[in-house]
C-alpha cells in the first residue's frame, strides 16, 4: 500500500494535535520506515547546518516546543539521538510524529537509536504499557519495536562531528568497525552495539570501565581523545544522561552531552537543550524550560495518573 505524501501530511497534522494514529496506519508507517531505513548506513553521513536533539522520552509537548524553538522540519535539519519513548506520557505520539516526519522529509531528519528503543526496556519503563492503554493490545508496540531494529546507530556531521546516543565501545574503537556491525536486531546485553547505546563519559576515570548501568562502559578522556584522533573526528555529541542545565561539555570541549527533556518526568526540574551546529561546525546550545502545556502535564484521557511518584 502506498503511503502518499497527502496521507503523511494528514497524519502529521493529526499527531501535532496529539491525536494518535489508527493501528493500521501505524503498520503502514512502520513498514515504510523499515524500507527506508534498510538503505541507511549504520553510520549516517549528514551535512551541516543541523540541529541535534537528545533524549525526549515521550514528552510530546516539549517535542513540539523543540520545533518551535529550533524551527519546523523541514526548514531546519534535525538529527535525533534516540530515546523517543518511555517515561513520558506520550511516547506513542512522539515516535509516531517523528516517524512520519522522517518518511515525509527523509533527507531533512535523521533518527538514531537510543538504548530505550528496545523491547526489554520498554516493557519496564512505560512504552509497552502506554501502547496497551491507548490501543488495547500490544500490536503497535510490536510494530514500533521491530522498526527500532532498523534505526541507524550513529551519524557524522561534515566528516567531523561524531554523534551517537551513549558513546564509545572498547570493542569498536574504529568507526569502520561500527559500520560493519549487524544492527538489525534487538539491542543485545553486551558487545559493541549495546555499548554505543549505553556508555557514558567519565571525567574522573581514564580508560574503559564497566558501567554501573549493567550495560556499556564508562569511557575516560584518554580513550575519547584517542578515538577522535584515530577516526579523524573533531568532536562527539551524545545524549543518554540527564543534565540539569540541558547540556554538558567535557574533555576540553571535545565531547558534549545534550539532553532535550525539560523537567524530566515532571520531577527533576531541569533545563533542556538542542545543539545547533552551523556550517562552520560551531555548536550553539539553545536551552529551554518545560513547555507551558507540559507543566500541567495532563496525560491523555485514558490514564488518570497525574502526578509523579515520590516517597510519601
Amino acid at each position, binding site marked *: 500500500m502506498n503511503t502518499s505524501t497527502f496521507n503523511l501530511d494528514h497524519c502529521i497534522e493529526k499527531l501535532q494535535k496529539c491525536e494518535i494514529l489508527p493501528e493500521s496506519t501505524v503498520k503502514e508507517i512502520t513498514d515504510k520506515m523499515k524500507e527506508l531505513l534498510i538503505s541507511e548506513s549504520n553510520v549516517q553521513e549528514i551535512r551541516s547546518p543541523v540541529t541535534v536533539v537528545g533524549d525526549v522520552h515521550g514528552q510530546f509537548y516539549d517535542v513540539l516546543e523543540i520545533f518551535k524553538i529550533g524551527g519546523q522540519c523541514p526548514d531546519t535539519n534535525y538529527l535525533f539521538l534516540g530515546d523517543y519513548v518511555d517515561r513520558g506520557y506520550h511516547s506513542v505520539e512522539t515516535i509516531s510524529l517523528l516517524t512520519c516526519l522522517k518518511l515525509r522529509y527523509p533527507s531533512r531528519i535523521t533518527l538514531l537509536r537510543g538504548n530505550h528503543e528496545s523491547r526489554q526496556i520498554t516493557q519496564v*519503563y512505560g512504552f509497552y504499557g502506554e501502547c496497551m492503554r491507548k490501543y488495547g493490545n500490544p500490536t503497535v508496540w510490536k510494530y514500533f519495536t521491530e522498526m527500532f531494529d532498523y534505526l541507524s546507530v550513529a551519524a557524522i556531521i561534515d566528516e567531523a562531528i561524531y554523534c551517537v546516543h551513549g558513546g564509545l565501545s572498547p570493542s569498536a574503537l574504529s568507526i569502520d568497525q561500527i559500520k560493519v556491525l549487524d544492527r538489525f536486531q534487538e539491542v543485545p546485553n553486551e558487545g559493541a552495539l549495546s555499548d554505543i547505546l549505553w556508555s557514558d563519559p567519565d571525567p574522573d576515570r581514564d580508560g574503559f570501565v564497566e558501567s554501573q548501568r*549493567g550495560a556499556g562502559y564508562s569511557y575516560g578522556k584518554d580513550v575519547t581523545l584517542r578515538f577522535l584522533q584515530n577516526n579523524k573526528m573533531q568532536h562527539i555529541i551524545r545524549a543518554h544522561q*540527564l543534565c540539569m542545565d540541558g547540556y554538558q561539555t567535557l574533555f576540553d570541549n571535545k565531547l558534549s552531552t545534550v539532553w532535550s527533556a525539560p523537567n524530566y518526568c515532571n*520531577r*527533576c*526540574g531541569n533545563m533542556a537543550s538542542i545543539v545547533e551546529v552551523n556550517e562552520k561546525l560551531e555548536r550553539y546550545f539553545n536551552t529551554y524550560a518545560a513547555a507551558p502545556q507540559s507543566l500541567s502535564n495532563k496525560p491523555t484521557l485514558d490514564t488518570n495518573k497525574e*502526578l509523579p511518584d515520590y*516517597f*510519601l
Partner: protein
Amino acid sequence: MSFSIPPLSSIGNHGNNNNSNSHAPRTSIKKSHKESIIGTNDDAASCKLSAVNVGYYSDPFVKYFVKHPIRRQPLINRGFFSRVECIEQLVSQFFNQYKDVDKKQIISLGCGFDTYYFRLMNNKDIKKDFIYFEVDYDQVISNKIKIIQNHKELQSMIDKEWDSKYDTNEKLASMVNHQRLSSKNYRLGSIDLTNLETFKVFNELEIDYNVPTLFLSECVLVYIPTKCGNDVIQWASDKFSESCFITYEQIKPNDEFGRMMIKNIEMKGCPLLSIESFPEIEDQRKRYNSLGWNKTEILDMRHVYSDFINKNRLKETEKLEIFDEFEEWDLIQGHYVYVFAMKSNAPSILDSYYFENSKNK
C-alpha cells in the same frame, strides 16, 4: 527478563489544593488536607507491595492492605527496599544494645498500614521481648483493625500469646474496640500528632516510660506544622530516657528538584509543612539535639544505599530488574534522609551505634 506489566492506575486524586495563607503559622490540619495525608498511606502500602512482588524483600502481610496491586518503576521499588533495609538494620542494633533488658518498646508514629510488627513476629531470629505500639489518625487505625479482623493470617500473629480459654473470634473481639487494639505485643490506638492531649492514648495502651523505646516516624512529622513536630520530638525525649527516634523525610526544598517536589506534593494535597525549617542535614541535626536528644546521626538515602545497607543485599536485589534511572536516583535520594537521634545515660551506647560513620569506611 520479561515482565507482564499491568496498566498504570490511579493512586487516587488527592487534589484540593490547600490555599491557606502560607505566611501564617499553621497550628492544625484541615479535613481535606488530613484526607490527603491519609492517602499517602495507601501509596506507601502499594509501593511496598510492588517491591515485595518483584522480590526485593519478604513481606507476606502487606498484600492484605492493598486493594489494587500496581507494579511501580524500579527507582520506587529500590527506594522502598532501601527504607525497609535501613530500618531493619537500625532496629536490630537497638535490640542488640539492650539485649540484656527483657522489655523493649517500638512506637510507630503515623504507622499507616505498615506491617513491620508482623514481619518482626514472623522472624524466628528475633526475640519477642518487645511491645509494638502503632498510632495514627482514627480512620487509619479503624481501617487497619478491620483489615486485621478480616484476615486470619494477620490475626494469627497477634493471637498466639493469649489464653487458650478464648477462641479466635472472642480473643480478637475482646482485644479490640473501635479504634484500639490491645494485646501482649501489639497495641494500636488513635492519635492526633498536632495535639499533645491525645498522647494520653499511650497511657491507655499501658506504655512503660522506663524501658528502652524506639520511635519510628517515616514521612510523618513533615506533614504537620514545625511547632507541632517539635512538640512530638521533645515529648519523646522528655518521657523516655533510653530511646532512639528514627525519622525519614524530605530535605533540600530550595534547588530545582526540591522546588518541583514541593509543588508536586502540594498538588497531591499534603504539603510538606516543616521542610523549609530544616532544609539541610545540619538543620535536622540541630532540631533533634535542641529538643532533648543527646546525639543525632543523619544519612541521606544515597549514602544509606551505597554505604550503610548490607552489600550482599545490594548484590541480590540489583539483579532483580533493569535499572536505568541513575541520575534521577541521585537527585531524589539526595532529597531524603534518615535521622537517627539517640538518648541514653550510657555514653558507650551513644558511641557504639553504626550509622553515619558508615560513610567514612
